């Protein structure tokens, strides 16, 4: 199992095989049956990389085939928003206000989010919001691979985000894993959550959820340009370079990512995060996912996938730099440092790591 961030690490270390030769070999892959075009283009692009540190995602060889799709959207408690006349947020300012109103009126945290000091806390709601806040322009590194967290827009957005979490979030934000946040929302303990789209499968399952049928879905709050730029992630299957049975390994990958297998995974095993458009469009899947949020779920996700991209600049130390960034968020949350100072500190640590890893001159 790999994915964009891991591929950057694995390719640099020379651990993983490019898959194009297998894909284009008619003896191994029946193109008409495999229907490679059926995968969402954004997911395929996420798994391509030309191997150049600092750029080139979406170009060059494909290193892994996506088995699931993950983009980031807002899920909110429609019942609470309707009852107290709260506006579904379209900007960051409105989101802060909505979270405040939920907490004030309904007495539960207005928003839950991942908060543990690890890269995973950066990658979903927080990171997508930051990208959207700057109309998709801001990157974590400049052209020379200098860490750019100290950028005024990033600092400003982060101050707003952390202030919102402190004011309206749960008291244990700093110790929340993805499943803690997801479960809090599913248990009716939060007004909003900005995280993986397919968490909806849990929210909408009446056997597990207290909020089934009460959830609405919306895009991440947009920046001045009015457009959302969500992050994108995908778990995908790649092949180890050291394997002795390369063709057999590919045949397994091909089977595991075939339309029939993935359709069965969705319908038979409730994996509602299809990486192929034909599965999303299958009537049986439409019947289930199409009902979520009164139809708003599928509309939101399909729209989101038009602009969703991998948020990060490719480099093999991405997990490490994300961890440092997340620790910066803790410095701000616990008021040890101002946002500007915390990010200056994180920048210098990130630059140091990249130098030590010989990625940067």
């Amino acid at each position, binding site marked *: 199992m790999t994915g964009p961030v891991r591929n950057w690490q694995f390719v640099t270390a020379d651990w993983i095989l490019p898959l194009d030769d297998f894909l284009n070999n008619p003896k191994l892959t029946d193109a008409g049956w495999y229907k490679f075009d059926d995968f969402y283009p954004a997911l395929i692009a996420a798994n391509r990389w030309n191997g150049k540190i600092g750029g080139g995602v979406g170009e060059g060889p494909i290193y892994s085939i996506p088995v699931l799709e993950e983009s980031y959207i807002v899920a909110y408690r429609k019942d609470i928003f309707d009852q107290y006349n709260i506006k579904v947020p379209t900007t960051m300012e409105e989101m802060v206000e909505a979270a405040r109103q939920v907490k004030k009126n309904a007495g539960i945290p207005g928003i839950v989010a991942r908060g543990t*000091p690890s890269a995973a806390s950066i990658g979903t709601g927080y990171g997508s919001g930051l990208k959207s806040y700057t109309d998709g322009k801001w990157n974590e590194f400049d052209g020379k691979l200098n860490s750019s967290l100290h950028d005024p827009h990033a600092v400003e957005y982060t101050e707003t985000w952390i202030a919102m979490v402190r004011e309206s979030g749960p*008291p244990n934000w700093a110790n929340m894993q993805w499943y803690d946040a997801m479960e809090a929302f599913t248990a009716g303990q939060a007004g909003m959550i900005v995280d993986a789209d397919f968490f909806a499968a849990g929210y909408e399952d009446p056997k597990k959820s207290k909020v089934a049928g009460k959830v609405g879905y919306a895009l991440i709050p947009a920046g001045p340009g009015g457009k959302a730029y969500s992050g994108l992630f995908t778990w995908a299957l790649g092949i180890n370079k050291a394997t002795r049975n390369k063709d057999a390994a590919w045949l397994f990958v091909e089977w595991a990512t075939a339309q029939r297998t993935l359709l069965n995974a969705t319908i038979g095993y409730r994996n509602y995060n299809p990486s192929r458009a034909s599965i999303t469009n299958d009537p049986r899947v439409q019947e289930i996912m199409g009902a979520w949020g009164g139809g708003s779920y599928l509309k939101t996700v399909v729209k989101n996938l038009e602009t969703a991209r991998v948020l990060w600049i490719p480099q093999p130390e991405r997990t490490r730099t994300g*961890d440092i960034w997340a620790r910066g968020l*803790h410095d701000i949350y616990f008021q040890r440092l101002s946002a500007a100072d915390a990010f200056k500190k994180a920048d210098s640590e990130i630059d140091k790591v990249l130098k030590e890893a010989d990625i940067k001159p």
Partner: protein
Amino acid sequence: MTTTRNRRRWRQEAALPYLLLAPALVLLVGMVYPFCLGIYYSLTNYWLQYPKRFRFIWFDNYISLLSEPLFARALEFTLGFTAIAVVVQVGLGLAVALFLHARIPGRKAMRALMLLPLMMPPVITALMWKIMMASTNAGILNYMLSFIGVDPINWLGSTQGAVVSILIIDTWGNLPFVSLILLGALQALPTEPYEAARVDGASPIATLRYITLPLLAPFILLAVTFRTMDSLRVFDVIYATTMGGPNDATTNLQIMALQYSFQWYQMGKGMAQAIVLLLLVVVASAVLMRLWNRAAERTAQ
């Protein structure tokens, strides 16, 4: 005929000691080899995803630790946690042992109950507490505290809260161990000094202060030694609850070494941190063992 039989017997007798030693030798090699490998790697820049750059760098990993702010914090937490955990656990453990040693009704059942936490895998203990420590009223701990008018406590989500929470969880899991050692010791103490004290009319407190504690000293030191070594390298409880957060407040040397080795794959650096921890444990246990020997001699006299 007889000579062949003798020779065969002689050969069997010569082989026997080696045969009996074999498991110990295998164990020794199994321990010494990874240990030496660990020391060797700590002197290299071994970084899993850059295998081609592997080289020997002498003590650079150790020197770079000095300029690593997280190392200072982790060292501070490791030592501070150990000091507090040992004092609390041995103190409470002694109290529990004295209580269970007294002639009270139902003490057999209580002794059996006391052992329960020892039977739980530490990770399960930690996860159980993590669920109970949920920060809203959904957490059973805060729910129960609400009956006595205590506001919800932010157990694992605040920096101080997380430190205290981990102390509580670790204490819950290890208190029985200390109590067990001290209870066993109490039951084995000679009865004569107590009879003499009773004849002299000594108060219970004087008996505790001048007879029980001095006689128990070697056992208390034994418990302190075990708990010090374990607390210096506590891992499971932290890993299962906070992973070292929030804001690195519960990152000790173990957690830090794990992050460097298996999250960021800098094996050389991670190994150097583990070796520093090992030195700490060795020094602490050497000092404590010497104190223990001295106390044991004194009691023997």
